[in-house]
């Protein structure tokens, strides 16, 4: 009998506000320690928090884009615990009245077979606003711990899912979709190295159809690869433990990225009593319909809606549609290219997901840094479609354009890549090939049709690659038939 893996994710999304959630200090990453911590972030005696409206607006944006209920009144609470990088001795968070209620996210999960996906809807339990803590620096000063409060007070949206995922692949697809979405709607820069998007995974196993098993929570996974590895390791560990006659204790675990193992950080017994209570320094957050509607009307078309549009109207596969909507910039690039060569969606998709993406990846660039513009790519594709150049020649134009710049048409001219479209010349050329290969012609005519490729190769070579393949094949077929 097999085990079912049950996964729920808590994702911390750093909101892209310029200043902190409760102070005016900047949120930019990478500054000298404690240079972006004001009196409020340092929790000096007497300071008070001031809610950043931009953070609330971003939370509403998120809620609307997952079809969630936006609480007309939500409350900030204090989560009390002592830690040196938590200056107030409490974290301002939301507890029983979060700003975003239940919603859902539909994801495409790869099946493992090339290009195949299946669709799944993951329910979102809630999302709430909170402030980040600072950092303890244990390595920098010998024998001492340094505290850097630059990150203290950075706005976070914690997005909690239901335990709806059944494999590491599903969890990763969900996390990726969330990552796409928060960047898409412009509430997070999505920079995982800088900690702007961090996942905690609650993992348990059970026999299908049975009650949920005891979960262990893997903290702070900051890449999709680690998320996948950690869940896979953890699930296997739980299976081995139960099958070995052991039991699972509720615990918080850390993923050791070097060893690829999860290890227990604290058990349920050590769980702290956070003594949540409403923060008396902050008023309840009241959100009226007008504000919600104003934000709703400012939202861009969302990836899911675009995916539906791409599959229904352009005839693209779900996989293609999913890849092309992996970011708003990607979708914009695709649509701008398609605008140059209408009705050639599949061709655009193939080039974007193939040559463009491969070249970008090679140089670790993202689509916004692509040296070729949608207009230029569109121009290359247009020349393929109208028969001016072959696909092979197009790749050469692309390469030149990528490394040297210029304009596609000019490159085609200078490099002499235009296809041969003079049928007379092509017929003469093919007649010559037929005349100089009599034995192969005889074999072909006796039924060895495989030899067509041999003749096509010779013809293309004779044309120096400039023959229009369709035209050439047609003439070749006719001549060979005799």
């Amino acid at each position: 009998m097999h085990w079912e893996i049950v996964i729920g994710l808590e994702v911390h999304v750093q909101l892209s506000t310029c200043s902190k959630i409760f102070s005016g200090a900047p949120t930019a990453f990478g500054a000298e320690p404690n240079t972006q911590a004001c009196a409020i972030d340092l929790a000096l005696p007497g300071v008070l928090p001031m809610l950043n409206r931009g953070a609330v607006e971003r939370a509403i944006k998120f809620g609307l884009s997952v079809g969630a209920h936006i609480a007309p009144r939500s409350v900030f609470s204090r989560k009390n615990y002592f830690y040196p990088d938590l200056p107030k001795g409490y974290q301002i968070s939301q507890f029983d009245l979060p700003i975003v209620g239940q919603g859902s996210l539909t994801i495409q999960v790869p099946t493992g077979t090339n290009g195949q996906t299946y669709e799944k809807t993951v329910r979102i339990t809630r999302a709430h606003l909170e402030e980040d803590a600072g950092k303890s620096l244990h390595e920098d000063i010998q024998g001492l711990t340094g505290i850097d409060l630059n990150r203290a007070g950075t706005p976070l949206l914690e997005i909690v899912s239901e335990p709806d995922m059944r494999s590491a692949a599903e969890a990763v697809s969900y996390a990726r979709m969330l990552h796409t979405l928060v960047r898409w709607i412009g509430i997070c820069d999505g920079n995982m190295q800088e900690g702007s998007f961090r996942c905690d995974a609650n993992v348990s196993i059970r026999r299908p159809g049975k009650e949920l098993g005891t979960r262990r929570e893997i903290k702070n996974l900051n890449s999709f690869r680690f998320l996948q590895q950690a869940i896979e390791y953890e699930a296997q560990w739980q299976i081995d433990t139960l099958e070995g006659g052991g039991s699972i204790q509720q615990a918080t675990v850390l993923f050791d990225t070097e060893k690829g193992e999860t290890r227990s950080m604290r058990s349920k017994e050590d769980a702290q009593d956070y003594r949540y209570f409403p923060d008396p320094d902050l008023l309840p957050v009241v959100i009226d319909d007008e504000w919600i509607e104003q934000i709703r009307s400012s939202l861009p078309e969302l990836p899911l809606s675009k995916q539906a549009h791409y599959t229904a109207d352009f005839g693209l596969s779900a996989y293609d549609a999913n890849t092309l909507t992996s970011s708003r910039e990607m979708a914009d690039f695709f649509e701008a290219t398609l605008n140059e060569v209408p009705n050639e969606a599949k061709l655009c998709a193939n080039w974007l997901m193939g040559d463009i993406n491969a070249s970008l990846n090679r140089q670790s660039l993202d689509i916004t840094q692509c040296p070729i513009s949608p207009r230029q790519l569109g121009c290359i594709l247009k020349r393929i479609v109208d028969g001016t150049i072959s696909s092979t020649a197009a790749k050469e134009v692309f390469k030149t354009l990528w490394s040297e710049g210029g304009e596609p048409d000019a490159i085609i001219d200078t490099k002499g890549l235009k296809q041969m479209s003079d049928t007379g010349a092509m017929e003469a050329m093919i007649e010559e090939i037929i005349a100089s290969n009599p034995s192969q012609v005889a074999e072909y005519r006796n039924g060895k049709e495989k030899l067509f490729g041999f003749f096509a190769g010779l013809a293309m070579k004779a044309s120096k690659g400039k023959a229009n393949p369709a035209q050439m094949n047609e003439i070749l077929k006719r001549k060979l038939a005799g």
Partner: protein
Amino acid sequence: MLTSSLSQLGAALRSKKISSVELTQLYLKRIAALNPELNAYITVNEELSLQQARAADTQLALSHTHALTGIPIAQKDIFCAKGWRTTCGSKMLSNFIAPYDAHVIEQFNRAGAVNLGKTNMDEFAMGSSNETSFFGKVKNPWNRNSVPGGSSGGSAAAISARMCAAATGTDTGGSIRQPAALCGISGLKPTYGVISRYGMVAFASSLDQAGPMARSAEDLSLLLNAMAGFDARDSTSLQREPEDYTRNLNTPLNGLRIGLPKEFFTEGVHSDVANAIESAIAEYKKLGARIVDIHLPNSSLSVPVYYVLAPAEASSNLSRFDGVRYGYRASGYANLAEMYEKSRAQGFGAEVKRRIMIGTYVLSHGYYDAYYLQAQKIRRLIAQDFVEAFKQCDVIMGPTTPTTAFNLGEKNDDPVQMYLSDIYTIAVNLAGLPGMSIPAGFSNNGLPIGLQIIGNYFEEARMLNVAHQYQQVADWHTRSPQHIEV
């Protein structure tokens, strides 16, 4: 000069009868003479005060003046003032020099007032006798064996002994009104949200409110004009049109409806206090007021509700005093937990620790509903009582405290007895209403008695009018302690 009202002092300064530097020096000398005995001030900083006085004199010479320009005002040591040691009466902050100004301090600076020094107070404003201060007890100028009240006991004593022209206080459960009553001065706690809490060290955020302390209602109104006003840095600060709190001072009281809650006149009130309040009410009748009997049926629950909610908030507010970034840190510790434990065990006094423990307990898992939530519900009922009462009257009056100043040390071993000295003041904080105390006579043994006036929300100007009219026919507020030379 020492008996002048704030407006008289302002006039003297503007007409160059005296300079701000001279006036400041006069008070500094007086502090030097009296403070070793009374201990009303924790910190005096002659250099900083005189610097402000000189700047005020420049402003006065240019006639760029506000009603308070050049007037030396004492600040309760709960307000952060840039460059000033700000201790909040605690060892925990005994080495803390504030790097920024509280809103209240900014407002006084803007008005050109002189910060005369930081007054003594109960540690983190937790106390009703000023005996919990790490910096020692304050003596009541009317009787050196008596407490001045608390937590703003230093400010009250300093005003009463003429060691400042006026002062600030804060009031979480009576900390302005109770010491004002016990020291024979006037004090006002405004409606919650009228004065920004920014820069005021927090005790119980939903109850804390700063306010003026002075000799007369007229002085209070001038101080409140400077202190009040919206401040975006405090989310609970109220966005309202600025008011001139002096505007109604001279309005006659004909037809004023005074509500007397029977719950404030029980056998717990000392007879001297009861008699004095009765006489004051009689005086008000002469001024044209009429009396309405009212009920505040839930007010008896104020003390227990307060001692759930205030410690709950305090337990969290005081978590930042952990020895990590500023303030006291124990010298020897083996690890992080020990650093916290020792720093807090050594840095906080007994009363603060008691309240942190009560607060931690009532917020704990499994107790939260029974204590914190229950107390919040009763808090709403108490507020509702006042809403009903103010349908029948314009102001509510009663004694500020059940007794006059008790002896130093008298209630130290019995926290509940100590807590009960705020029995009439606490409900006002729970409801967020404005309340004030004005001198209304003396006990047989010569100790001051305070009359409490409670107004409806934002009725400060009306309350000041009610108090001022009384102070036109009574002279209690002008009296000085016998032993203090004026």
